[in-house]
């Protein structure tokens, strides 16, 4: 499969990249690992005039801890995150998620964490070859007015299948977006529009620079379901964070439950998370209830567009959340020592 034509630019530093990005704006795309971007370009889903390569920007590849925050450069390869003791220790859900992204030989050395967060939403009616799509009217995401995933839907119902974003949202991460005359830091949870066509609330001249994870005295876990353990995207995934109470050591002070691959963005389920407040770490019944509430809440967003039947995926939300909660609780009990 040939790639469409484009101009290739290789800025030497971040400032150069931002300059180019502000000049070309919508005509340009940022090329980091390329494991998602080049596939979409090959399928004719994207035809940027210019690719701005981050090849020389080693300044965006780092993992460090400072003042209670873990900072990860957006161009850090997945392999570096999997190999990092700091991430495994302090942000276990992210470690588990990165380990399961694609396959080692595809994403782990070329693919980056920034690219994983910014991987475009998917839908099995949209992510097809040009030939396949030429057989029918274009869908919303393809510039048309039809949704094949949900009848008579007036907007795009594509699904965010990023492993990294789901785990990071559970860890309450923030991201920093840079542009030529400044930068801003936003909660990952506020970074999403509810629009499947352009799921990210970022401008065309902004560049994802850094991911910031607060270090908390808490345990996190990530569970995913996919047809094949490697290569495939998740059809359901869940990231959770359990924070122990300072006074009552076996009580949950705060919880975050995030379900991925069900909606247009990873879904932070406030109601289910809140229901765990004050519950005991060994209270399996409370976990079961929170998992069922997650299933009810997440199901309203899902459409039948990423493989497996909708019924199965919805049922498995509860399983994934339950298993992740159990795993995090076990880790919290063990950490208590």
């Amino acid at each position, binding site marked *: 499969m040939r790639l469409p034509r484009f101009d290739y630019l290789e800025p030497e530093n971040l400032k150069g990249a931002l300059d180019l990005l502000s000049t070309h704006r919508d005509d340009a795309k940022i090329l980091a690992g390329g494991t998602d971007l080049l596939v979409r370009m090959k399928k004719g889903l994207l035809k940027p005039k210019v690719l701005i390569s981050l090849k020389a920007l080693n300044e965006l590849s780092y993992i460090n801890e400072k003042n209670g925050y873990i900072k990860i450069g957006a161009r850090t390869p997945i392999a570096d995150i999997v190999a990092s003791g700091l991430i495994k220790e302090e942000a276990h859900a992210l470690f588990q998620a990165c380990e399961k992204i694609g396959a080692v*030989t595809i994403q782990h*050395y070329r693919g980056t964490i920034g690219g994983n967060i910014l991987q475009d939403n998917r839908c099995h009616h949209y992510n097809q070859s040009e030939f396949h799509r030429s057989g029918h009217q274009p869908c919303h995401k393809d510039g048309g007015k039809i949704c094949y995933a949900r009848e008579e839907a007036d907007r795009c119902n594509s699904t965010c299948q990023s492993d990294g974003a789901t785990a990071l949202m559970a860890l309450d991460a923030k991201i920093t977006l840079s542009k030529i005359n400044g930068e801003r830091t936003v909660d990952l949870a506020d970074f999403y529009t509810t629009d499947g066509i352009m799921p990210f609330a970022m401008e065309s001249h902004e560049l994802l620079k850094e991911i910031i994870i607060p270090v908390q005295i808490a345990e996190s876990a990530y569970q995913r379901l996919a047809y094949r353990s490697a290569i495939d995207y998740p059809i359901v995934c869940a990231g959770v964070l359990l924070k122990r109470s300072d006074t009552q050591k076996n009580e949950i002070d705060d919880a975050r439950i995030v379900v991925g691959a069900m909606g247009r963005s990873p879904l932070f389920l406030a109601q289910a998370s809140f229901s765990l407040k004050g519950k005991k770490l060994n209270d399996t019944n409370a976990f079961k209830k929170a998992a069922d509430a997650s299933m009810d809440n997440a199901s309203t967003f899902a459409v039948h567009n990423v493989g497996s039947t909708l019924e199965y995926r919805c049922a498995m939300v509860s399983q994934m959340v339950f298993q992740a909660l159990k795993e995090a609780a076990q880790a919290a009990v063990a950490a208590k020592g």
Partner: protein
Amino acid sequence: MEKIEITLNINDKPCEVRVFPNDTLLEVLRDELDLTGSKESCGEGVCGSCTVHMDEKPVRACLTLAMEATGTRIKTVEGLANGDDLSDLQQSFIDHGAVQCGFCTPGMLMSADALLNENPKPDEKTVRMALAGNICRCTGYAKIVEAVGHAGNPQDHCPDCKTKE
């Protein structure tokens, strides 16, 4: 749009080629340099038959721009053997009957070679994890996993290892 002259370090030899910005490393290897060992199968990074090493790490040549490969050391399946002298891994693939139609084999070899460079005596699970990104449609993963596990590490219980001697 015009061609750009770049230098690639392939199998420890510098190669000067003229490429379009939208040429992938795989297209340059196969069409410009006649290194047709690496195969194109799916072309979208799923199957693994185009796997090559960049700085000793396995990557998909079909999802790597040739321009992005400048300044790195690239090793293709042609770089495994030393002249006519096959590497232990290649010989092990032959001895264990790990090659059926052979289309996935170059990718399998490169993924396995990267694993063996890091871990010369991997257990079965490690081998399966390392090869998880390579797809064989002849169904024969068992022989491939065995061949990788026994490469340069012959097992007494394995009849295929014995035939070698």
